[in-house]
C-alpha cells in the first residue's frame, strides 16, 4: 500500500536539543520487550500495540513466555508498519530489557541503528546504544510499588520513539480505565516518571520517529478470539473444553460471548469429558466445538473416532504447540498433522482445515460448523500457537459472507413426505438426513458400533462394506465444499512454496523480499490439509520445477503427506523445517532455498 507523502512525516512529539541529528524514521519497526515473568512485558507490548493502532499502523505482536506465572524469562515483540504485516520482523529496532537475559537474547537481532532501554536497578548493559534507567527504584519511591516500572519504561520508550504525548496518555487511560481510579492514576504517574527520566538523557528524545499510516478501522485480535467469534456467528451454541495452553482463550472468550445467545460453555473435568459432552450436544442437534492442544487431542482421539463412525458433527480446534507429551506448552510448532491425518484407530472420514490469520480463523470456523453438520463428520480446525496467541491487525470480520448451512437436517415439517426414518440411510453423497432427538414422531439409534441404516448393530459383511464406502466416500464427495487453497505470486514462477497456518505470514513476506530482488516465486497456501486437495496441488506442482514445503516440525509432515498422495511429484518436493519453538523469520526461509540464497 502507498501513503501520500504529505502524511508520512513524524508524529509530533518532543524534539531533541538543537543540533542533534534528525530522527531515524521507522516505517516498519520492531520493539522487543524482555524480562522476568511478572515484570509486565506483555503490558508494555499491549500499550505499544494500542499506540501504533492509533497511528493507523498495521500491528503484529508475538510473545515468548514460559509455562509459569512468575519468574523465568519472558519476552514479547511488537511490530508496526505502514504496510500489512503478518510475521515477526527479523530485526529488532528497540529492545526494552528488564533483565540481562533479555539483552543476551535480543542483541543478536538488534539492528545496526538499534537501541536498548533497560532497567538499571539490577544490572548494567555495556553497549554503546543503550540507556539504563532505574525504573523499579524511580517508581518504587513515589508510587510505593516497583510493579509500575513497565509503564515507566513505556514512558521512556515514548520519548525515544518520538511519540505524541496526548496519544501516549490516551493509551494508558484506555488500558487502565476498567481497573479504576488508583490503578489509572498510578500508571499515569509512572508514565510521567519514565518520560521525565528519558527527557533528561541527551540525544534520546526523538532519536526515532514512527511513520503514521492510514490503516484505520482495523481490529487487533488473535486467532483464538477470531475462532470464538466465528463460532458464535456460525451458530455454535455449545462448547466444552479443558484449560490447556495455547487453546484456553477460545473457551474464555466464549464464556463471555455465548450466554447472551442462549449458548452453553462448560469447563469439563478433562478432555475426555469435553469431547464426549460435545458429542452428546451435537447428537442432540446443537452446533458444537471444543478447543485443545496436543495432549488433549490425544485424549479426545477416541471421541473423534466415534464422531466419524456414528456420524456426529463436531468441530475440534487444535491449537498446536511443541509436543509430544507436555513438550513446550507455550511454544510454536506444527507437528500434529500426521496424527490428525491418521487420527485414531480404525478408519473414518475427517476434514482438517487450516486458517492462516485471524480473519481466516473467523470465516473458517463458520465454515467448519457448516461442513461438520452438512457432511456429518468431525472437522478439525488446525491452528498453531503463533496463530492462536499472537495479535495481528485485521479488517473487521465480514458478517456479510457468513451463513449457516444445516444440510439435510430434518424437522417436523418434513414428516408428511416421509414413510420411514433411517438415521444412516444410504444416499448418493453419503449424507443421511438427520432428525435431532425431540423431533416429533422420529427417533433413531445412533452408535459407534458398525450398524445398518436403522442404526442397529450389524456384523453383516455386505453392510459393513457399504457403510464404509458411504462414510469414507465423504472425503471425495465433499471436495468442492472444502476451503480452497490460495495462490500468491507469479503464475509463471518455477520456484514453488507450500505452507499452511501462521507460516503463511513469513512465507508471504519472504515472497515479497524475493520479488524485490527479482526472484519469482509462487506460494500455495493450503487451507484444506486433509484430505490432501490433490486437484489443487497437482496443477501447482506441475507448474513449478521445485516446491519448498515450509513447516514447523522435524519430519516434514505435510511434505510426507504430499509425497504419499502425489507420488508422481515426489522429486520436486523439498522441506524447509523449523522446530525450535520459534516461528520462521524471513532470512531462515530464504536460506533454505538454494535457488535464491
Amino acid at each position, binding site marked *: 500500500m502507498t501513503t501520500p507523502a504529505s502524511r508520512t512525516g513524524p508524529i509530533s512529539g518532543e524534539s531533541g536539543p538543537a543540533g542533534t541529528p534528525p530522527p531515524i524514521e521507522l516505517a516498519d519497526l520492531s520493539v522487543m520487550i524482555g524480562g522476568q515473568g511478572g515484570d509486565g512485558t506483555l503490558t508494555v507490548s499491549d500499550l505499544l500495540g494500542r499506540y501504533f493502532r492509533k497511528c493507523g499502523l498495521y500491528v503484529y505482536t508475538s510473545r515468548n513466555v514460559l509455562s509459569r506465572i512468575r519468574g523465568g524469562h519472558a519476552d514479547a515483540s511488537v511490530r508496526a508498519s505502514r504496510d500489512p504485516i503478518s510475521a515477526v520482523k527479523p530485526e529488532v529496532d528497540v529492545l526494552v530489557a528488564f533483565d540481562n537475559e533479555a539483552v543476551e537474547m535480543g542483541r543478536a537481532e538488534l539492528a545496526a541503528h538499534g537501541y536498548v532501554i533497560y532497567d538499571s536497578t539490577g544490572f548494567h548493559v555495556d553497549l554503546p546504544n543503550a540507556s539504563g534507567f532505574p525504573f523499579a527504584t524511580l517508581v518504587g519511591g513515589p508510587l510505593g510499588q516497583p510493579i509500575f516500572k513497565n509503564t515507566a519504561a513505556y514512558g521512556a520508550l515514548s520519548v525515544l520513539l518520538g511519540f505524541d504525548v496526548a496519544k501516549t496518555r490516551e493509551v494508558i487511560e484506555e488500558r487502565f480505565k476498567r481497573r479504576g481510579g488508583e490503578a489509572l492514576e498510578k500508571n499515569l504517574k509512572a508514565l510521567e516518571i519514565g518520560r521525565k527520566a528519558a527527557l533528561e538523557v541527551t540525544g534520546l528524545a526523538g532519536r526515532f520517529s514512527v511513520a503514521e499510516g492510514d490503516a484505520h478501522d482495523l481490529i487487533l485480535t488473535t486467532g483464538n478470539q477470531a475462532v470464538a467469534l466465528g463460532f458464535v*456467528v456460525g451458530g455454535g451454541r455449545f462448547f466444552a473444553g479443558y484449560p490447556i495452553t495455547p487453546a484456553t482463550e477460545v473457551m474464555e472468550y466464549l464464556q463471555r460471548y455465548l450466554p447472551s445467545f442462549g449458548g452453553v460453555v462448560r469447563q469439563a473435568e478433562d478432555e475426555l469429558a469435553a469431547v464426549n459432552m460435545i458429542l*452428546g450436544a451435537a447428537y442432540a442437534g446443537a452446533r458444537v466445538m471444543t478447543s485443545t492442544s496436543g495432549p488433549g487431542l490425544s485424549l479426545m482421539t477416541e471421541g473423534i473416532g466415534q464422531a466419524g463412525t456414528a456420524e456426529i458433527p463436531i468441530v475440534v480446534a487444535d491449537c498446536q504447540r511443541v509436543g509430544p507429551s507436555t513438550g513446550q506448552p507455550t511454544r510454536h510448532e506444527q507437528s500434529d498433522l500426521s496424527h490428525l491425518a491418521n487420527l485414531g484407530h480404525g478408519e473414518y472420514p475427517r476434514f482438517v482445515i487450516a486458517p492462516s490469520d485471524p480473519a481466516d480463523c473467523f470465516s473458517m470456523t463458520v465454515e467448519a460448523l457448516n461442513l461438520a453438520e452438512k457432511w456429518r463428520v468431525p472437522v478439525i480446525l488446525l491452528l498453531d500457537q503463533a496463530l492462536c496467541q499472537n495479535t495481528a491487525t485485521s479488517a473487521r470480520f465480514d458478517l456479510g459472507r457468513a451463513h449457516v448451512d444445516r444440510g439435510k437436517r430434518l424437522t417436523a415439517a418434513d414428516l408428511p413426505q416421509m414413510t420411514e426414518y433411517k438415521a444412516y440411510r444410504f444416499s448418493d453423497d453419503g449424507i443421511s438426513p438427520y432428525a435431532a432427538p425431540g423431533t416429533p414422531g422420529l427417533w433413531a439409534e445412533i452408535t459407534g458400533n458398525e450398524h445398518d441404516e436403522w442404526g442397529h448393530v450389524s456384523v453383516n459383511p455386505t453392510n459393513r462394506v457399504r457403510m464404509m464406502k458411504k462414510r469414507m466416500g465423504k472425503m471425495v464427495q465433499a471436495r468442492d465444499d472444502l476451503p480452497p487453497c490460495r495462490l500468491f505470486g507469479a503464475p509463471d514462477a518455477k520456484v514453488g512454496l507450500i505452507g499452511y497456518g501462521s507460516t503463511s505470514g513469513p512465507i508471504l513476506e519472504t515472497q515479497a523480499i524475493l520479488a524485490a530482488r527479482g526472484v519469482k516465486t509462487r506460494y500455495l497456501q493450503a487451507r484444506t490439509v486433509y484430505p490432501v486437495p490433490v486437484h489443487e496441488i497437482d496443477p501447482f506442482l506441475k507448474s513449478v520445477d521445485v516446491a519448498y514445503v515450509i513447516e514447523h516440525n522435524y519430519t516434514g509432515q505435510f511434505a510426507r503427506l504430499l509425497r504419499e498422495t502425489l507420488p508422481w511429484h515426489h522429486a520436486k518436493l523439498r522441506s524447509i523445517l523449523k522446530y525450535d519453538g520459534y516461528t520462521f523469520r524471513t532470512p531462515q526461509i530464504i536460506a533454505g532455498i538454494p535457488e535464491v540464497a
Partner: protein
Amino acid sequence: MVQSAKPTAPIWCPGCGDFSLLAAVKKAAANLKIPAHDLVLVGGIGCSGSIHNFLEVNGIHALHGRLLAQAVGVKLANPHLTVVAAGGDGDGYAIGMGHFMHAFKKNASILYIVMNNETYGLTKGQPSPTSQIGFEGNIEAPFDAILSALSIPAPNFLARTFSGDPKTMTAVLEEAIRFNHEHRGFAFVEDLSPCVTYNDTYKLWREKVVDVSKLPGYDPTDRKSMFRLYLETTEAGKIPIGVFHRPAEVARAGLEAKLLGENVGPARSEISVESNLAAYQKLLAGVA
C-alpha cells in the same frame, strides 16, 4: 405415521437381572407418558449398555465410560428431553469413574442407572470395581457408589434398587425421572442386577437386601443421618436398598436450569445469521 427404528431383541442371558430393569424403564416411561421422541437413552459399553437397542427411544451408544459426559451434553443442549444414561459397574465405576464423581457435582437433571453385577460380564467374568474380595482373585476393596455419592454435598437424588424387586424399581425410577423433569438435578439409581452366568448373586442378595425406609430414623433429606444408617446397615453385613437422598425441594437446582433459565437450549436455538444479525453486529463492533 413415519416408521422409526424398531427395538431389537435383548442379547442378555436368560434370567439376567437387566431384564427387570428394562421392563421397569419401559413401565416408568409409559406411566409418565414420555413420548419416544422425547426420551433419550444413552447406553454405556457392556451387556447392560446395550439396553437402548431394546426400547423404542432415541438411543445413543456412548464410548466406554463416557456415557455420563454424553448424557450431560444432550441435556444441556436440549433441556426439554428426558435423558437416561444406563450402563454397568465397570463402565461407570472403573473407566468412567472420573465422570461419575463429577456428575454429582454437575447436577444436570438426568437419570443415571448403573446395573451393578459385580463383574465384567461381556468379557466373561473378570472382577469389577464392586467385586467382593475373593471374587476371581480380587484383592481390592469393593467400591460403594452410594456411600461415595452421599459424600458430595449436592442436591442429588440417590437410590438403590434390586432386580429381584421390580415393583419397587419402577416406583423409584418414576420418582427419579419426575425429579429430573422438575429440573431439580441429578438422579442416580444403582440397580443390583445379578449376572446369572458369571456371578449369580440372586440368592445371596435376596437374603441381604434391607429396605432402608423401614429402618428407624430414616430421613432421606438428612445426609448426616443417612450416612450413619447406611454404614450401620452395611457393617451389619446387609445391603441397603431404597432412596438414600431425596433433597428438600430446591427450585431448578439442575445444571441446565442454572445455565439456561427459560432458554430453549443450544439445540433448539434459532441460529441463522439473519435472525441474530443485530446481536452479531454488536458483538463484532465490540472487538477493538
